[in-house]
């Protein structure tokens, strides 16, 4: 009986970062490799991701939950795209100014309320337009990170993150106003941010 008790792991005693790594390392390594197609680069990205995550451990609640899982995947994915673009010296495609202007119309209160039930559909639509926009929006409004924290986590400048958040909101408003899905051709350089 004593041996059994000793074998039981006490999650509270384990280091949070170690626990996160132990739980999600395979998944995250897979996500990084799918984008980079290089084992060493994927390893580097994971190391960078965990260094950045270690600075925000206080914001992470439960280890085994969708919220934490989603957060880790978003960080690794964005860092992977950043690494990919760096290597290929590619310039990521952004939402064009034209489309942003078109979507600049005020969204009514009814639009927000009536489209709540379409949340999943809207999220999917946004991720198809630009998954990077969806990532930034999620980090900002769901995980409640500041723009400067987001910039640090995804290796972008504050101004770039600000502009892309504005464009992400504009893209969402356009989806709402069009009442359907809006697609944009993904570039070969890799989507995301």
């Amino acid at each position, binding site marked *: 009986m004593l041996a059994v008790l000793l074998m039981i792991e006490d999650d509270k005693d384990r280091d949070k970062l170690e626990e996160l790594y132990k739980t999600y390392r395979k*998944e995250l*390594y*897979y996500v990084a490799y799918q984008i980079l197609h290089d084992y060493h680069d994927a390893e580097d990205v994971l190391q960078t991701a965990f260094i950045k995550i270690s600075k925000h451990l206080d914001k992470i609640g439960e280890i085994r939950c969708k919220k934490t899982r*989603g957060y880790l995947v978003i960080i690794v994915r964005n860092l992977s795209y950043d690494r990919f673009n760096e290597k290929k010296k590619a310039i990521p495609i952004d939402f064009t100014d034209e489309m942003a202007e078109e979507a600049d119309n005020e969204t009514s209160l009814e639009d927000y309320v009536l489209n709540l039930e379409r949340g999943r559909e809207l999220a999917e639509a946004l991720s198809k337009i630009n998954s990077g926009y969806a990532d930034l929006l*999620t980090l900002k409004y769901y995980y409640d990170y500041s723009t400067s924290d987001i910039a640090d986590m995804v290796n972008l400048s504050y101004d770039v993150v600000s502009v892309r958040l504005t464009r992400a909101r504009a893209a969402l408003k356009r989806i709402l106003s069009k009442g359907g899905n809006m697609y944009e051709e993904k570039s070969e350089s890799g989507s995301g941010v």
Partner: protein
Amino acid sequence: MKKNPNPDREYKAQLEHSFLMHIGYEYVEVLCSGLDEVKEEWENVKVPESLDRWMNDFTAQERRMKKKRKYGFLANRFVRKAAVIILFLLVFNNILMASVDAYRLRLLESISYIQESFTQINFDLRSPGYKSSIPMNWDGWFYLTYIPKGYSLYDDNITEQSAMLDFKNAGDGRIILQQVSCASSQQLDTENSTITKIIVNEEEALLIEKDDFKIISWLQDDIALYLQGNNINVRELKKVAENIKRDEK
């Protein structure tokens, strides 16, 4: 409370924030669903051992840094507290020393009444002596029975409270005996002078030396006596003091 000038705009902003938060929530659901669909693929992924080793080293380093920061913070707090305590002790110590000094000074003052450059002397009462060549109305006052060679009576003065005998010699030498009843008190100029306690006629006396002047002050009977001499040595002046007598009628 300050009234919000644009309540509708604020409400809309809050609603937009909530809406976007909901979109974020749904997006995370979409992400997780997408990964669950390919679970078999990522479950069989082989993570490099070098990554595991790096992670072990990194977490160990983080733990050490955390401990260092914690101890640094505690040490900092301790040092600050210790500094406050030491400062308090120093201030308290200085106040105490000053107080002790002040107390000591007050005690001395109560015995000798030393105030700045003056020495005020008060006496208790004692018994009488004999007379020599002194004025006729010298009742009850003291007179000198020993005067150094060459000195003669130059002046005298008498009031209800005091009496004075002034002796001079051919040179600059002068001996003055002043005496006052203890009903009054005298102030002696003792600035830049040396004060020494001596015994005269078994009574405690003060010897005050200032430049060429010497004063012996003491109490005898109920009379305060001040014997002043210039160009005279202490031994001689003391001899004069020890040989004074009182005129008893």
